[in-house]
C-alpha cells in the first residue's frame, strides 16, 4: 500500500491559521489570520476524509472540487490545486477569506459532523491561491480567439466581475460600469480590511483590466448614462448592481443625528483606513466611532463588520443589539466570537423601541423572548413587557439588512419586471430577465446574499450569455 496521504483526521486535530491577539489586532485594519505555513496547510488538508459523497461540495454554491484540491495540497501539488480550485471559482482567495464556511462547506464537513473538527477548507483555499499569486501562476486573461460580440455589465461587484472573467476568457468584449470610484463593490467598500485586505481585491481588478476588461467607473446608470444606451452598445447586458437600500427603522427618534446607515459607515471607514482617502463625513466625526459609545443594531454579518470597525476606530464601548439569541443570529458564529474577543458586547434578545436625544444619546431597548417556532422552524421573537431600559449611545449604526433599489424607476425601464420584493425577476440558472438579452444576477435578483452566490450567478449567467450569443450567431449564419 502506498502511503495514504489523506484521512489524517483520526490523529491530527483541527487547527486554524494563527489568529493575531485581539489586543494587537484591534488597533489596525489588517487581516486577523496569518497564512498557513506550507507544512501546516498540507497537514490540515490531509485531514480530509475524501468522502464518496462530498458534502462540502454539495453545500458549496460553486460546487468547488474541495476534496480534490485538498488532496493535491496535502501532497504538495499546489499548482494543480490552484488550477483545479480556479476552474470552479473566479476568486478562491476571496471566498477563502470571507465565505461563512461554518455555514457552507465546513459546516457540512463529514468529519466535523461526527465530532472530529472540520477540515479548515477556507484557510486552505485562501492559502492555495495566495501561493499562486506569490508564485506568479495567476496570469491575466489571454483569450485564444477574440470575438466581436460585446457584453455590458452594470456593477463591478463579485457577481459582475465573475461574469466578466468568464466572458472575457471566451474572447468577448466586456465593459463593466459601476457607480463607485473603485471596482469590487462590497468587496472593496463593504467588507472591512481586517476580513479582506484591499490589495487582494485590487489585484483581481487589475488582472481583469490587464486581460482586456474595460471599466467605466463613477458611472450612475440612469444619471450619467441611460440604461438603454448601454443596451444599445452591447449584444447583452448583465445587471449586477447588488442591493444598497438600507432597511430602516421607523421607531421614534430614528431620524436623529448620530444614527447612521451601515453602508455609509463601512464605506467611509474602508476608504479612509484602507485606501487613505479623505472622506468628509469621517473627518467631521459623523462616521467615525472614535471615543464614542457605539450601538449597532442587527445580527448579521454587516453588523459584525460594523462593531469590529468601531472597535478599531477607537470607540469607548461597542454594543450590538439583536432581537433573537446567539443560536438564531444570521451572522457567522466565528465572526461573533472574533468580535467578542475584541471587546464587543452583545445584547441578545434586545430590540430598539426608540431613540433618545438629537443628536442621539441613547437607545430605548425592549427585551424579547423567543416564541413558538413557525412553519420554517424559526422562532419568532416576542416582547417581554416591562423589561425596557435605555442603552447609552452617541453613535447608532443601523445594520438591519439591505433591500433593492427600484431599478425600473431609477433607470426608466418599464419592461424590466421585478418581484414584489423589488428584486429583478430573472431565471435563477441563467439570469435571463423579461427583457431580451438582458440578464440579472446576484443580490439584485436574490436579495441580500453571499459573495459566493454572486460569483456562482455571474459564472452561470456568463455561460448562458455565451450559449445564447452563440446560438444567435449560428442562426444569423444560416
Amino acid at each position, binding site marked *: *500500500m*502506498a502511503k*495514504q496521504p489523506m*484521512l489524517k*483526521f*483520526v490523529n491530527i486535530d483541527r487547527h486554524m491559521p494563527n489568529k493575531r491577539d485581539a489586543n494587537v489586532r484591534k488597533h489596525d485594519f489588517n487581516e486577523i489570520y496569518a497564512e498557513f505555513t506550507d507544512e501546516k496547510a498540507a497537514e490540515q488538508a490531509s485531514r480530509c*476524509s*475524501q*468522502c*464518496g*459523497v*462530498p*458534502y462540502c*461540495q*454539495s*453545500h458549496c454554491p460553486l*460546487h468547488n*472540487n474541495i*476534496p*480534490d484540491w485538498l*488532496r493535491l495540497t496535502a501532497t504538495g*501539488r499546489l499548482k494543480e490545486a490552484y*488550477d*483545479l480550485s480556479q*476552474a470552479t471559482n473566479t476568486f478562491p482567495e476571496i471566498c477563502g477569506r470571507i465565505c461563512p464556511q461554518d455555514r457552507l462547506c465546513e459546516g*457540512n464537513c*463529514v*468529519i466535523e*459532523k*461526527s*465530532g*472530529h473538527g472540520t477540515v479548515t477548507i477556507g484557510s486552505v483555499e485562501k492559502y492555495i491561491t495566495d501561493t499562486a499569486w506569490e508564485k506568479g501562476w495567476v496570469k491575466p486573461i489571454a483569450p*485564444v480567439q477574440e470575438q466581436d460580440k460585446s457584453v455590458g455589465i452594470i456593477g463591478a461587484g463579485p457577481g459582475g466581475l465573475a461574469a466578466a472573467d468568464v466572458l472575457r476568457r471566451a474572447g468577448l468584449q466586456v465593459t463593466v460600469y459601476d457607480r463607485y470610484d473603485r471596482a469590487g463593490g462590497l468587496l472593496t467598500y463593504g467588507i472591512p480590511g481586517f476580513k479582506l485586505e484591499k490589495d487582494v481585491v485590487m489585484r483581481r481588478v487589475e488582472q481583469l483590466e490587464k486581460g482586456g476588461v474595460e471599466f467605466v467607473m463613477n458611472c450612475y446608470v440612469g444619471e450619467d448614462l441611460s440604461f438603454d444606451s448601454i443596451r444599445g452598445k452591447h449584444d447583452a447586458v448583465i445587471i449586477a448592481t447588488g442591493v444598497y437600500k438600507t432597511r430602516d427603522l421607523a421607531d421614534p427618534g430614528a431620524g436623529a443625528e448620530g444614527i447612521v446607515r451601515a453602508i455609509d459607515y463601512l464605506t467611509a471607514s474602508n476608504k479612509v483606513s484602507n485606501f487613505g482617502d479623505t472622506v468628509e463625513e469621517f473627518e467631521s466625526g459623523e462616521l467615525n466611532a472614535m471615543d464614542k459609545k457605539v450601538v449597532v443594531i442587527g445580527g448579521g454579518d454587516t453588523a459584525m463588520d460594523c462593531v469590529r470597525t468601531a472597535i478599531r476606530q477607537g470607540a469607548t464601548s461597542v454594543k450590538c443589539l439583536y432581537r433573537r439569541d446567539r443560536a438564531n443570529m444570521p451572522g457567522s458564529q466565528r465572526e461573533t466570537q472574533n468580535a467578542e474577543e475584541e471587546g464587543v458586547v452583545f445584547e441578545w434578545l434586545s430590540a430598539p423601541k426608540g431613540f433618545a436625544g438629537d443628536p442621539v444619546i441613547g437607545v430605548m431597548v425592549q427585551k424579547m423572548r423567543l416564541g413558538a417556532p413557525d412553519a420554517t422552524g424559526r422562532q419568532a421573537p416576542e416582547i417581554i413587557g416591562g423589561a425596557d431600559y435605555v442603552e447609552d449611545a452617541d453613535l447608532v449604526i443601523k445594520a438591519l439588512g439591505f433591500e433593492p433599489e427600484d431599478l425600473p424607476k431609477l433607470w426608466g425601464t418599464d419592461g424590466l419586471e421585478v418581484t414584489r420584493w423589488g428584486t429583478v425577476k430573472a431565471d435563477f440558472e441563467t439570469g435571463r430577465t423579461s427583457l431580451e438579452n438582458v440578464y440579472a444576477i446576484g443580490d439584485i435578483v436574490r436579495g441580500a446574499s453571499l459573495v459566493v452566490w454572486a460569483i456562482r450567478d455571474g459564472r452561470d449567467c456568463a455561460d448562458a450569455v455565451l450559449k445564447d450569443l452563440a446560438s444567435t450567431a449560428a442562426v444569423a449564419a444560416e
Partner: protein
Amino acid sequence: MTKFDENWAAAEVAKRKWMAENGMYSEEDEKANCGVGLVVSIDGKPSRKVVENGIAALKAIWHRGAVDADGKTGDGAGIHVQIPVPFFYDQIKRTGHEPRQDQLMAVGQVFLPRTNFGAQETCRTIVETEVLRMGYYIYGWRHVPVETECLGEKANATRPEIEQIIIANAKGVDEETFERELYVIRRRIEKAAAAAGIVDLYICSLSCRSIIYKGMMLAEQVAEFYPDLKDERFESAFAIYHQRYSTNTFPQWWLAQPFRMLAHNGEINTIKGNTNWMKSHEIRMASSAFGDLAEDIKPIIQSGSSDSAALDSVFEVLVRAGRSAPMAKTMLIPESWSKQAAELPEAWRDMYSYCNSVMEPWDGPAALAMTDGRWVCAGLDRNGLRPMRYVVTGDGLVIAGSEAGMVPINEATVKEKGALGPGQMLAVDMKKGLLFHDTEIKDKLSNALPFGEWVGHINELAEALSKVTEKPLYSGEELRRRQVAAGYTIEELEQILAPMVEDAKETLASMGDDTPSAVLSNKYRPLSHFFRQNFSQVTNPPIDSLREYRVMSLKTRFGNLKNVLDESGSQTEILVMDSPFVGNAQWEEVKTHFNADMVEIDCTFPAGADQDALRKNLERIRAEAEDAVRSGAGHLLLTDQHQGAAKVAMPMILATSAIHSHLTRKGLRTFCSITVRSAECIDPHYFAVLVGSGATIVNAYLAEDSLADRIDRGLLDGSLTEAVARYREAIDQGLLKIMAKMGISVISSYRGALNFEAVGLSRAMCAEYFPGMTSRISGIGVSGIQKKVEEVHARGFLSDSVLPVGGFYKLRKSGETHAWEAQSMHLLQSACDRASFEIWKQYSAKMQSMPPIHLRDLLAIKPMGNSVPIEEVESITSIRKRFVTPGMSLGALSPEAHKTLNVAMNRIGAKSDSGEGGEDPAHFVPEPNGDNPSAKIKQVASGRFGVTAEYLNHCEELEIKVAQGAKPGEGGQLPGMKVTDLIARLRHSTKGVTLISPPPHHDIYSIEDLAQLIYDLKQINPTVKVTVKLVASSGVGTIAAGVVKAKADIILISGHNGGTGASPATSIKFAGLPWEMGLTEAHQVLAMNNLRERVTLRTDGGLRTGRDIVMAAMLGAEEYGIGTAALIAMGCIMVRQCQSNTCPVGVCTQDESLRAKFTGNADKVVNLITFYAQEVREILASIGARSLDEVIGRADLLSQVSRGSAHLDDLDLNPLLITVDGAADINYDRNKARNVVPDTLDAEIVRDAARFLQDGEKMQLSYAVQNTHRTVGTRTSSHIVKRFGMRNALQPNHLTVKLTGSVGQSLGAFSAPGLKIEVSGDANDYVGKGLSGGTVVVRPPMASPLVAADNTIIGNTVLYGATDGFLFAAGRAGERFAVRNSGASVVIEGCGSNGCEYMTGGVAVILGSIGPNFGAGMTGGMAYLYDPEGKAADMMNMETLVTGPVTVDYWKEQLETLIERHLEETGSRKATEIMQHWDSELANFVQVCPKEMLIHIPHPLTLEQGAVPAE
C-alpha cells in the same frame, strides 16, 4: 404410460425456444456437473466382474446427481463398456444371420425419433446409406430392450426409440482404419440428418470396440432400464460410468454421459474461447488427418454441444488422427507447468511447452474418465478441482471415481489406494496389460517424441523486453488533448492509474456502485463500461489468483499458429511473452523479432463525416485485415494513435472484435497475431475486454505517456521503465483476477472468448461485431457509439477543454450521477431520526426525480384495477416481515452497528443476516430489555469464520454466500488492523493478524458439492431453511434451477451494486448484473421448470424506495434486502472509506474512538423499514392490490415508459417483462416447510444413542457404512449442542461411534465435543468440515496390507473451517488439507496440494510428504512436517511463513503429544517408528509458523529468538 407424452415434449421445446427469444432464459447457460468413474482390468481381459462393478458404482453415486420434480427423472446417467462380441453374435444368430467371425464387428447405439415413424424410417435409411457408402456390411438392426417403469414421467415423455445397428467389417481393413471410418460415417450421418431436418437422431456410439448405454434415468436405474447390462454374456475389460447433475430440467437424452471417448465431471470454463479457436484450427487439422474426408467431419464441434460434449468431440478427433488418449488429455488439459514449485523434469516441460504452442488448454474443473479403445485413463485438470480417488485391487482391477468406496473391494488384498492430484493422470494400457502412474505415463509420453528439439524454436521474449528503456509517445499539449479525447478524467489518473503504478496493485474502494449503467448515462462512457465481467458461481469455482498463482498463466503466444495435428518443430516457430501487456518501447522491440510481415491498420475515421462513417470504416479495417493476412502478413497492428483534429479514434474494443470475429469467420485468425494500441485503455478491465475481444497483446500507450507526464511533474519517483514495470504488474494481477473469477487460469483460452455480458449494446451490433456475446438488453449501436466518440473527440481536439474532474467512483457535482447524494441521504436520515413519513415521501420523490440510473427507472407500474382503500391492504407489520438486512459482517461493521441491525430487525419480526465472521455467543441470550441481538440468518461464507455447531443452531435460516454483488468471484481480506480482540475471538483467530476469505467455497466446486453442503447444513440444524446467495449474471436462472434441485429453500439474487467493505475499484464497477436482470431470469427459468414454488426468491442491491420494492415484487421477488439504506439510517454518509478503518461516523470501523461516534439506534432502522412498508402499502392501494402476494411475479404490471436517451438505437426492456405460461398458478408461500433431505446414518445413531442424549450416559455404537452414508455424526452433534451446549463437560469419547467401510462425504462435519467417530476403512471429501470440538479417527482396516503413508485414506478439503477438535488419520489426505482450519489439531501421514491453505489456527502434524503450495495464505496456527528427505521446503508457499527446526521445549512437547495420541488412536506404523527413535527423528521435523504470528505466540519459535523481546 404417462399423461404427458410427446405433446408435452413438443410444447416444452416450443416454450423454451420462445423463452430464449423473448425472455431472460438462454439455453447456452445450462450447466452440468456430476459423478464419474471407471473400472478397468489391467490385463485387458473382458469379464463380467468389470461390468458389474461399474453398475454397482453407479448405484453408489446417486447423491451426486439430481432428481426432477417427478422424483424419478434423473439428469442422466450411463455406462461405456466394450462390445461383448459373443452377446452380439447371439443377437445376430437370432435374426437368422451367421456372424462373420473372421471380420471385426461394429455396433452403433442409436437414439431415433420414437413416435414419428416417418422420421424414424428416414433415420434408418440415412444410417444404412452412409454405412454402405463407406463399403461395410450391415447385419441388421436390433431393438434394444428397455424397462420403462423405472423412468420418470418427463424422461419417458422424451424417451427416444433406442436401437442398435450391427455392422461387419466387410472391407477387412485394420481396426484403426475401421474405427476412423466409423467416425466419418457417424459424422456423415449426423450431417445428413441435419440436412433432412431431423433433430432427434443421435448416435451414442458407433465403434468396433465399445458401446455406450445411457439415458435420463437415475444412476442406480441404468442396468434396470437396459437389461442387456445384466446379461451374463455382457463382459468388458473396462467400464466408464457417469451420473449427471444438470441445472437443466428438460430431459435431453443425448446430453447424458459418457460421450464417445470420455466422461467428464466438472465444467469447461474456457468453452467459448476453445470453441472459437477450434473454428480456426479445424481447417488445417481436418485436412491433414482426413484428407478428402475433411469436409465430412467439420465442424468438429457441433452447435448445441455441452462443454463436455465439445471437449469429447475434439478429444475424439485427436484420437482418430492418431493420438493416444493420454496424449490427447495432455494436449487438451495439461497440468500447469511453467511455475511449478519443484521444477518438472525437462522432458515434461518441453512437452508442455510444445502443447502450449499448438493448443489453448481447455480449462476448468475436470475429473475425466476416458478411453480410446486401448488406453483407459483417469485425469484431473490443472487445479485439481474435482476429486478422483482410485484403488488397485488384488485381482488386477483399477477402480477410479469421484468417491472412494463406490465399489466394495477386498481390503485384505488391496494393493494401492490413491487420489489423483492436480493435472495428474492414471493410465492403463489394456493391450500391454500395464498400469502407468502419473510420473510413468508422463515420462513415457514426453520421451516418445523429440519435444526438446522442437521447442528450441520458441523465442522467449521476456529477456529481451526486460532490457528495453521505455519512452513516451506524446507529451505536453498533445498529451492533454489526447487524454481528453480518450475520456480520461483526473479521477481516473489519480485514483486508478496512479495507485497501480505506485503499489503495483489495483486500488481498493468500498460501498456499492450507485451510478447509472453506461447505457443510461448521459456522460461519455468508454465502451468497456458496457461489458460486464463473467464470473463463476456454484457450478464451478473461481480461483485465488494470488495464493494459487502457480496454476495461473499469462503466457502469450505470438505468431502464425500451425496445424495442431502436426508433430514437428514447425509449430513452435513462435514468439512467447509473459503477459499480453507491452510497453511503448517494448513494442518496438517485439517488432524486431517478427519473422513475418506486419501490417498496420489505422483505426480512425474522418471527423465530421456522415452518420455511417464508423460503420464504413469498420468494414474498411476488416477488409484491410483480411487482405493483409491473405497476402501473407503474420502480424496485424491495430492502432488509434493517428487520431487528431481531423480523425476520430474508433473504440479499440469495437475495432479489435470486428477484426477478430471477421478473421475467425474466414478461418484466418490463427494465421496472424493482433497487437492493439489503444489510447482509451487504462485499467485492467479495459485490457481484459481487449484480450477477450481477440487482442494478442495490448499497448496502452496513452496510459504510459500519462505516467511519463507524472514523472516529469515530479509526482512519481524513478524512471518510466520502472513505472511501466509496476503498471504492468498491476495490470497482470488484474487480468489474472478477472480470469480467475470465472475460473480460467490460462490467458490463451480466455483470449477472444468474450467472456462478458453486454448491458445495453444493440443486439444487431453484437451479432455482427461481438458474435457469441450475450446482450439481452439491447441498446446503443454503431451509430450511437459514433456520436459519443465524436463528442469526446471534439472536446479533446476541437476545443480547449481541461481534463474533467471525474466523479465515476466518487461523486462530483460535474461528474456522473450517483443515487446517494447529500440531499437524499439527509432526507432519509431526517425521516428516520424523526419518524417522519412526510420527510420519507420527500426522500422518495427526490429519488424518483433523479435521471435514470437503473433499468427499472425506465419502467412504470400499471394499475391492476381500481384503487382500493388503504385499510384493506395488508398491514405494515405483515409487509415488514419480508425485509432482510443482508449479510454485513462484524468485521466490516462496528459491533454497535451490527447489533443495532439485529435488534431492529428482530423487533419487527423481520430478519437480519450475521454476515461472515460469526456472532458473539452473548447475543444468543436476550438483552435485559428484552431485545434479541442474535441474527436470525447466519451466513456461511467461504472463510467459514466462526461457523461452529453452536452458531449454526442459533438461527432460523442459514445463508450460503456463494458470491457477493460488489465482487463476485473474488475473496476478501480483513486486514490485521481491523481484527480486534472481539473479532479474533469470534473468528477463532489472533488479534491483529490478517484473515483471508478465499474466492471459492472449498467445498463447492460444482452443483453437487453445493447440494452436499446444503445437506450438511440441514443435518446440523434440523429445522433451518437454507438460502443460497447468488449474484445476478447471465445464466443465473439455470444455476438457480440447479440450486433448487440441491434442496435450497431460499435463493437470494444480489444485484451487482451491493455494497462492500473493500474491493478492487474495477470489480465494484464491472462485474455482475443489475438485480432486475438476474431476478427476472431466475424467476422465469424457475417458473418454466416448475421449480418456482419450491423456493422463496429474495433480492437485494440498491432497493431505495417503496416503488423499488413493488417493482422487485412484480419481477418475482418475495423478500427484499436493504443494506446501504439501513447503514445510512444508522448514520452512514457514504464516505466510501470503509477499507481504511477510518469511518468518521463509527458505522464501518473497529477503531474504538471512531466507534464512539456511532449515533445509530434500532428505532431508526425500524422507522426505515416501516417507511418502506408504508410506501409499499400506499402503492398497492393505488393500483388496486390488497397484498404483496397479489403482485409477485406480475411483470405484466410493468411497462417500459422511456426508451432511454436519443442516441440509442433501441433500449428494449421487454425481456424483463414477459410472463411464463402457467406462472399465474404459482403459489407463493413463504411459510412452507423446508425442502426435505433424506436421512443419513444419524437417524439410526440418534435412536440408538437415546440414553446418551437423554441421560448423558457414556455409549459406544458400531455400524458398517458405505460412501452413500454422508455427513455422519452431524445430526448427532446438533442434538449434543442442543442438549449439552457446545462448551459442555462431556468426555471426549462420551459417545463413540465406530464405523467400518468407506464412509461418504462430510464425515463428522461440525462434530461437537463429546462425540468421537472412529472409522476403520477410509473416508471421502470434507472430513471434519467445520469440526467444532469432536474427535474423528480414520485408520485402515486391520487386515489391510497397505502402507498407510503411501495411500490416501481421506479425501479433499479436510477440516475446512474447523474451529476445535481432533482428527487422526493413518494415511494421506487429498488436496487442500486443513484449508481455513482455525482451531482443530490434526495428525495425518501426507497430503496433496495446497495443504493448510488460509489456515488461521490449530495444529497440523503431517508425517508424510506434502503437495505443492503448502501454507498459501496461512496466517495462523502451527504446522509440523516430517521431512527426512528435506523436500518440503520446495513445496511451501513461503509468502506468509517462517520455518525452522523444532527446538523449543514447548513446541516439542506439543508435537510429541500429538504424535503419541495419533499412535494411540490409529496404531499408525509410521508413528510407531517415529516415536521409537524420537530423539533422532525430532530433527526430521520442520516447524512452520506464519510470520504474522511471531509476535503473538506464547513461546518463541527458536531459542535465539527467545532472548529478544517479542516485539
